[in-house]
């Protein structure tokens, strides 16, 4: 089943604004992990806000599990099935303790007390924060706070998780924590993930990647396909993941390594080159 379907979607915040969408078409299958790439102002965050009715589209249609997002009567049901984690962890916390914050979503949809308790257990375990149930968010690190934000969304039991640049404000350690949690949720809980990011190495872990530029989808395909077209990527203000960048550098200076994107691949390539030279 299609989790998310955009058909001829147009949107603008007003005549003067850059952050608009221009005839966007794409769909996400249930269980997929799709990365959306693009530099600032490419319209990638607008996608997230359109999906759960925070913004209303001007023309075209968006379907979330078959529900039309433009109809107000669907908004509540759509928000239950689409969980969005935003950029700044500090501005997503409602309560002064982790437990109360995670409870906020289930409280809103009217879940019984006993079940809220179970959902908090589940959500905190899923993000590996069960030890911090009674802690104060203010005392946690950025990565931990963002994991709590994910737990807060998970407690609503969404079927799609949208991460709207959720790692942008984190340090490398925090980013890795979040990616590990997201991959685990995608694999184990079968939650569909839309990963909006400008970190290329995060996109590598996706099943599919979409590149946006000036409100249009300009590239689509597996991460490997997309990163094999590095010149094109550069036109849209994006670069290769670090390893890919090193590869290009090596090739330019005459080392005959093949194209690779992951550290492991590059290590094997270099080993291969080295052994060939020895012979």
């Amino acid at each position, binding site marked *: 089943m299609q989790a998310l379907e955009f058909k001829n979607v147009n949107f603008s915040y007003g005549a003067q604004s850059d952050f608009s969408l221009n005839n966007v078409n794409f769909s996400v299958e249930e269980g997929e992990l799709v990365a959306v790439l693009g530099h600032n102002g490419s319209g990638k965050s607008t996608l997230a806000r359109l999906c759960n009715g925070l913004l209303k589209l001007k023309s075209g249609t968006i379907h979330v599990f078959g529900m039309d997002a433009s109809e107000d009567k669907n908004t509540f049901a759509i928000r239950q099935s689409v969980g969005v984690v*935003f950029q*700044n962890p500090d*501005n*997503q916390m*409602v309560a002064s303790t982790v437990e109360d914050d995670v409870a906020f979503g289930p*409280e*809103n949809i009217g879940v019984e*007390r006993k079940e809220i308790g179970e959902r908090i257990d589940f959500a905190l375990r899923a993000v590996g924060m069960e030890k911090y149930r009674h802690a104060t968010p203010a005392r946690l690190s950025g990565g931990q706070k963002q994991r709590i*934000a994910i737990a807060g969304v998970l407690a609503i039991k969404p079927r799609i998780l949208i991460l709207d640049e959720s790692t942008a404000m984190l340090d490398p350690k925090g980013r890795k924590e979040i990616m590990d949690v997201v991959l685990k949720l995608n694999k184990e809980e079968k939650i569909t993930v839309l990963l909006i990011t400008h970190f290329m190495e995060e996109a590598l872990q996706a099943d599919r990647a979409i590149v946006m530029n000036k409100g249009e989808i300009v590239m689509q395909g597996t991460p490997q396909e997309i990163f094999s077209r590095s010149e094109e990527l550069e036109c849209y203000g994006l670069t290769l993941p670090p390893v890919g960048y090193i590869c290009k550098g090596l090739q330019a200076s005459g080392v005959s390594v093949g194209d690779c994107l992951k550290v492991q691949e590059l290590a094997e390539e270099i080993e291969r080159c080295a052994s060939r030279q020895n012979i």
Partner: protein
Amino acid sequence: MLKDVTFGQYYPVKSFVHNCDPRIKILFLIGFIVAVFLASNFYGLALCAAVLVIGILCSRVPVQSILRSIKGILFLLAFTAILNLFFYAGETTVVIGEIPLQWGVVNITYEGIYFMLFLMFRLFMLILSSSLLTLTTTPVNLTDGIESLLTPLKWLRFPVHVLALVMSIALRMIPSLMDETDRIMNAQKARGTDFEHGNIFKRVKAIVPILIPLLIGAMRRAEELGDAMDARCYTGSENRTKYKKLTFTWRDLIVFLLCAALIAGVVLCNVYLGSIL
């Protein structure tokens, strides 16, 4: 369970008073204040003081922390004391040696001294009892208690749960805003703003470049938080459930009985032991 709190004067130990239901503590405070105001002689006040001392002992909060709350109102205390001492319309003027302490409108009388002591005693107990509440109750619990006590207002269509949410978000945002203030102050210091020197007007003026970015930041936060709450299905409807539930225990019954006994005792003192007012 000891909760982590980052601000306020909450004193984290385990005690009888800490474990009481916040609602009963708020009600007890109200009852206590009523008793303190009802008392019209020192016997009544002494009864209140005895209850307060028991409360402080049962809370395991060090006496110094409780007395610290007096500091803030020292000026107010001194001011009312002097006003009452000099201007109370009593009859017997105090005479030291041969000189009656009376100059124009200033007239120090025995009744004035008596009344001043009475008033000090009263104010003292009001402050101590309310700081005992905030020292033994986390802000979160306090908010829950207030929300629960205001529930009857729902019948008057007063949006109790909205008020409670606003209070809890305000509590939650205080540490974030403190951090931000710190950041902005450092940024402004780096640009050469001087917060520590100059007269009062100069210093007040130096605060403006902190307040404006802070305000704008707070608005941006509010907008983002609003989006995040919308995304988490908040609709402000009455159908919300509540995860945390406050429950009365045997402790609360004891506190309730103590409060009733105190008010009754004070009334009896008033009736049988005369009044000084």
